[in-house]
Every structure is written in structure tokens, then in C-alpha cells.
């Protein structure tokens, strides 16, 4: 192999590796590992519609599937102080915008001692485009964060 050829190959490899490194470093994929001690669940990050809060929402086991009661966790952080869970209330609902209907079951929400929320019994009964509403209640405001979910 000529040295020119070898240099070209090395340059190409370096470019590829750099590309990979760049892509993973600046990845806009919202899924990240939670580095906090004792928690290993992957979560999606959702910003509330008014920008005040950042929510970490785990995926239910098996994903957002149709026709099964779904359970997941939510942590609410303030956008300007994301170091600890915000002391707020949370309301959860879901809706199919194209169909103009919501869910047929009322989800249960439990607030844990560490300030995170456990949501259970979210029931998405039809396939298609759902919006899961996570409404953060901090008197006098209620601000919505929402997650788009395509259910098969």
C-alpha cells in the first residue's frame, strides 16, 4: 500500500470515528441514562409548554402499547433549577387529537417520598396518535407538558 493510500485510509477512518463521536456527543435523542445513584431507568425529557418545567418520563414496560394498563414514572424539575424534584402536583391524562376523544380509564397518580410521581392505569385503547398530558400544578398555575405517542 502506498503511503498516500495509507494516509487516505487513516484519514477516512478518523473522519468516520470523528463523525461517530460527534453524533453521539451532540445526540438530540432525548433518551439518556440517569446517573443518579440507585436509578437505572431510561427516560425521555419533555419540556413543559410554557418552558417552566423539565419532566423526565420513563417508558412503561414494553412501551406505550394499546389495550394494557400502563405504568411509568415522572420526575418534575424546574427549568431554572433542575437539581432536585420540584414540589408540585401532577395531573395525567391522554387524548387522541384526530379522534377528539380521551381515555376511558382514569389514571392513578401517586407521589413518592422522593418527590417523583408514579403513574398507573394509563389506558390507551386505540391505535394511532395519542398525546399524553402531564399537567404540573403549582398554585396558581397549571402548566402542561405533553408527550406524543404513536400506539400501534
Amino acid at each position, binding site marked *: 500500500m502506498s503511503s498516500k493510500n495509507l494516509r487516505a485510509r487513516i484519514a477516512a477512518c478518523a473522519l468516520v470515528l470523528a463523525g461517530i463521536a460527534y453524533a453521539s456527543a451532540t445526540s438530540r435523542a432525548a433518551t439518556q441514562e440517569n446517573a443518579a445513584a440507585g436509578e437505572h431507568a431510561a427516560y425521555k425529557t419533555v419540556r413543559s409548554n410554557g418552558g417552566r418545567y423539565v419532566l423526565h418520563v420513563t417508558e412503561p414496560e414494553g412501551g406505550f402499547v394499546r389495550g394494557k394498563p400502563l405504568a411509568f414514572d415522572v420526575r418534575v424539575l424546574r427549568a431554572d433549577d433542575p437539581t432536585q424534584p420540584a414540589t408540585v402536583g401532577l395531573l395525567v391524562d391522554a387524548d387522541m387529537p384526530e379522534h*377528539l*376523544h380521551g381515555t376511558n*380509564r*382514569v389514571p392513578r397518580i401517586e407521589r413518592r417520598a422522593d418527590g417523583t410521581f408514579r403513574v398507573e392505569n394509563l389506558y390507551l385503547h386505540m391505535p394511532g396518535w395519542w398525546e399524553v398530558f402531564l399537567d404540573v400544578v403549582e398554585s396558581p398555575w397549571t402548566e402542561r407538558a405533553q408527550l406524543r405517542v404513536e400506539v*400501534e
Partner: protein
Amino acid sequence: MKRLVTFVLASAVASWAVASCAGRNTANDTANDTARGALSGTASESPPAISTEPAPSPPVDRPSVELVAALDALTIQRILRHGPLGAPAPDPTNRVATSLEAAHLGQRLFYDPRLSLDGFHSCASCHMPTRGFADGLDLPVPVGSSDRHVPSVLNAAHQRWFFWDGRADSLWSQALAVISNPKELGVGRPGLARLVTHDAIYRAEYRAAFGEDPSDAPTDEDRTAVNAAKAIAAYEAQLESGDSAFDQFAGALAANDLDAAATYPSDALRGLLLFVGRANCRSCHAGPNFSDGEFHSIGMAPRGGGKPSHPGRMRGIEILRADPFRGSGPWSDAPTSEHAREVDALVQSSEQWGQVRTPSLRNVARTAPYMSEGQKATLREILEYYSTLEGAVTVAHHGEQVLKPLALSEGDMTDLEAFLRSLDGRDPPDERVWAPPKPR
């Protein structure tokens, strides 16, 4: 005397033979069905063969292996979500749901006309094995009359809610409601308890199933009746319809056996692709049971025209919550279970007015006519409705808006119908149909 008896018997047999050859479902047929029921205890008699509705039989055109191989991953995924049906989840509110002894007792009760006030009608009078465990009528003609089309009992254990408006949340409470309704069977819980207590065969079978004797004393009659209803539910849970041509296709697809998959008829395959594709029937007819188990209104005009008048699910939830025989009530075997307490988490709103339960499409070709009042006589009529939504009662600003006219071509409708016919399953085994023989 002997000649008289012989003459009477011969006449009875002759008239039975003539009537059963008539084919149309008339009141005579109903009486003969019950007569068959009354006679069915004879050990020497074998149950008649079950005849299914004949399907049209054009020459079968099979797809090419390449066509099947060309299906994209998302389509395959959507197809595979429709099967296989598998065994139903056992009902925790019914401790004998999977008990063979209870199912045996329930099977006998199912065909027993003594459950009706007039003594001529059994569950099978409306849920006829020869008619896909429905009755082939738009509206039933049991003891009195009803204004709802009879659904099939096949695969019923896969349902979550029962009756068109979901007012019952278990098979056993559904049976109990029918037995208690004077417009349907009508003997009520006391009558059911009495029957089971004073008939020696029932008493023995009850003891085998429940480990105690039945009793029709006023303090015990409800418990006995509830148990008997749970036995009927255990029987009904056995009425599974088994593999259909579609299931075989889906199984072959899952196993990547393209040659086996390519034995599925072309028109059914085209219909299936519409079903999971452009026609989007899977929106509501989802999952292995081809029903989301929920409630919708498709704007179907009532029988006889006019405005819809059935409140549907909105009222069904009210009735369910007040029903002492609901899953979270005192007669349930798991009143605090997650399953039973779903009734407390139900959303109830006026948007549910008029909504009825999404029926399963399995065996749909065998259970004409269709819709909650039997408004549509054939599958084709249903497809034409979905194609144009002509005559739909739609109101803006109220309720969900899921349907859009599909504008199906003639070919589309033929293909969809072929697909729906491919959902016919095998019948339950013979020994599960008709009353079991009486013990010697």
C-alpha cells in the same frame, strides 16, 4: 294403549323431522330447538352435526410467494398483532372459571329450558350452536321481546364487558342478568336456585363443582344462583372457536414460512391489507380478538329510522356501578382485585351516549345480521356503510369523530368480505355443544 303411545311418538318424531327440514328460523324452530333440548338427555342420541352458513365459493386464487415476501415490516407487525387468540385470561371474580366440573354443570344449564318462565327457552334458544351461538335474527324473540340483537357467545371469555352497553363486567353476572330479566329468561335467582337444588343430577354436579350442596332457602338462594351462573360462565369460556384461515396465515407469516403463507387466498389477503391499511378497521377492531373491548358510536341509525334513543355506554356504566353482582361487589371471588376495581376507574361522560361495545369480528360471517339492533343484514351492507357513511347520524361538537367515508371500490369490498370470512374459526369440539348426556 301401546298403539296410542306409538302413534303419539311417531307423530312427534315426524313433525320434528318436518320442522327441522324447513330451515327458516321460525317460532316452530325455536320450539323444536327446545324440544331437542328436552330430548337431549337421552344417552343414545348423538348431537346433530352443526351446519355453518355456506360461504360463497368462487375459484380460489392464491397470492404469489413474492407478494407475501414483499410485505413491509410495519404491515407484518400490524397483521401479527391480530393473533393468535390464545386462551382467555381466567376471570378472577369467578373461582370456578377454569373448573371442568363447573363447566360440565354450566353446559347442562345452558341448554335447559327450565331457566325460562315459559319452560320452553334456554340460553341456547338465542345462542344457538347452529347459528354461531347467536340467533340469526335482527331482534330476538325469546320469552318476551328485546330491542337488542343477540351477540355470539363464541370466544366471549375474551371480552372485558358484556351486553351492548357494558352493564355487566363478567360472564357470570351477564348470565344472571338474563336469567333475572322477565323479558328474557326470567325465572330469576330464586328459580335458578330451586332448579339446581331439587334436580338430583344438578345437585350432584353442583356438589362436585363447589364442594357443597345447593340450597334454595331464602338465605342461600342468591349464593346458589350466583354459583350456578359461574358454572354457566365456566362452560361459556370453553366455547372457543379455534384457528381460522387468517390465523394459519398469520402463524405462517410469524414463522417466516412463505410457502404456507401463500396458501391464503388472494382476495382475503388484499382485504387484510385494507383492514390494517387504508380502511384502518384495526382502529376499533384491534388485537387478537378483533375488538378493542371498548365502546364506540358509528352513527348507525336505529332500526325503523328516527333518532337514536339508546344511551349506550353512558348508561351502561351507571347500571354496572349499581349492580350488586359486579366484579367489585360482594358476590365476586376477587372484589378487591385490580381487575374488579377497574369499574371504579372508568371515565363516565355524556360523550359516551349511544356508544356500544365493539364486537369481535371472529366468526362474523356466521352471525348475520349485524349491529346492535340487527340493522345490517349482510357483511356487504356494513362495508357499504363504512364506505359512504350514508345515513349516519352524526352530530358536531359531540363525542368522538373517528370515522371518515372510506370510498371503497367494488373490489375493495369484495376483498374485505373475503378477509372477514377468513376469520371463521373451527367449532368447539362436539362434546362441548348441546347438553351433556345424563349420567346413568
